[in-house]
């Protein structure tokens, strides 16, 4: 308990950055992921192929490697000036690009669960691709999309810890500061693990509840 209480400042700072990293990347990956999913079901073959290529490449690359690229190698390309670049920004880009591939798959499989008759009816009424997707398919897909989406977000929350290895001060990096202060690293890490369990369990319960509630109606 002492390790936690004597170093509240580090724990607070670490978890605040973790949650900030999570929220920014979650928003980014939801938007990018939905756009990618729309590309993957669009009537234009080139756009479909682009979406598929992106998802295939990103899903088969370790997240650590994506981080590696955006924190170490990306600044070398001088796309943005060296002063503007922070490891936090690199971490946000890496997490957003990586997670959006998974969001895309979840949304796309959700679109596929909507009964074909719904789309056919929408088309028979003369709705365009965009209209039938936005007004008919996506609202109905939400039901089967949200529970796995919550799981993807849980994974994102846990994945933020990888940023600790790339000089972002977040929950995973609490260890460095503790060992600097000569505190017990093991107890500190167990506290971090415990706090993550506290953060993840409500989300898991939410996901289970949504799954139970929404799977009945179909």
């Amino acid at each position, binding site marked *: 308990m002492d390790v936690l209480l004597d170093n509240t400042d580090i724990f607070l700072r670490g978890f605040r950055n973790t949650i900030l990293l999570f929220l920014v990347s979650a928003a980014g990956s939801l938007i990018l992921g939905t756009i990618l999913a729309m590309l993957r079901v669009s009537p234009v073959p080139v756009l479909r192929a682009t979406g598929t290529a992106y998802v295939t490449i990103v*899903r088969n690359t370790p997240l650590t490697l994506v981080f590696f690229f955006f924190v170490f190698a990306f600044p070398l390309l001088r796309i943005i000036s060296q002063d503007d670049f922070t490891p936090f920004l690199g971490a946000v880009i890496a997490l957003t690009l990586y997670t959006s591939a998974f969001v895309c798959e979840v949304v796309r499989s959700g679109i596929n669960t909507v009964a074909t008759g719904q789309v056919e009816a929408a088309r028979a009424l003369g709705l365009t691709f965009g209209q039938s997707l936005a007004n008919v398919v996506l609202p109905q897909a939400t039901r089967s999309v949200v529970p796995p989406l919550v799981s993807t977000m849980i994974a994102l929350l846990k994945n933020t810890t990888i940023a600790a290895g790339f000089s972002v001060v977040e929950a995973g990096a609490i260890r460095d500061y503790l060992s600097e202060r000569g505190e017990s690293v093991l107890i500190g890490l167990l506290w971090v693990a415990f706090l993550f369990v506290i953060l993840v369990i409500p989300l898991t319960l939410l996901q289970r509840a949504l799954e139970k509630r929404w799977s009945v109606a179909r």
Partner: protein
Amino acid sequence: MSMNLFDLPGPRARARHRIYAVVGTLAVVGVVAFVIFRFADSGQFDARRWEWIEYAQIQRDLIDALVNTLKAFAIGAVLALIFGAIFAAGRLSDHAIIRVPSMLVVELFRAIPLVILMFVFHYGIGLGAPINSVVLGLMLYNGAVLAEIFRAGVLALPRGQSEAAYAVGMRKTQVMNLVLLPQALRAMLPAIVSQLVVLLKDTALGFLITYEELLRYARFLGSQAQFGRPLVPLTIVVAAMYIVMCLLLTWLAHYLSKRERRSKKHLDLEGPKPEEVQLASALSTGA
């Protein structure tokens, strides 16, 4: 899957789609060209930065690093499968005294980030060589996910299967080993292989605790001034290696599920399929 979100395009729609296709192609080509231009402009394609590939020693070291990655993957995969099997059996037990602790262990290791798990083993407890912590972390985390997959696979079988087996007088162990597992494994195989892809990707986390795997070697070689700090070329090479390895595994999963669907022993399952459970719980985790 083959859901038609759009009508067969008429002449005007075809013209519009052609415009979209041109704009889309231009956008994609533009982005790719911009990235390649930046790579070239900052000198990443200079011959000097690619010279390292020609050194026999570096090739050997790179292969060694690859072998280390594969070693962690192989040991971790075997241990995770065993751990998963044991805890799935525990969760399916009729005795609450076994079922509840197994459930707690599985939920606990699924909730803790793998990085933190590895940090605890490496920096907290101090298990010596980094590979011990890497393998142990991979085993506990992926084993917990695999346990859920196994459990879902067994539960997804029609109830009639176990009822019939009990009716002919089999014991619990016999029902599980002779009737349920052979059918469940068949259905679970693709989900298990995709979890192994996750495990393979997670070995890259060893980088964070100084395990001498591909990324660590890339970092080391990438900072060598005599080769012009070829970090970007190395990242490209290492990424290609990982993508090829993962695609091979994914392709194996596809092949197995296709073969399974064709087979005469195929069984249409009701309820959530193991793949869906995995999509909901595991596919997107890890690195």
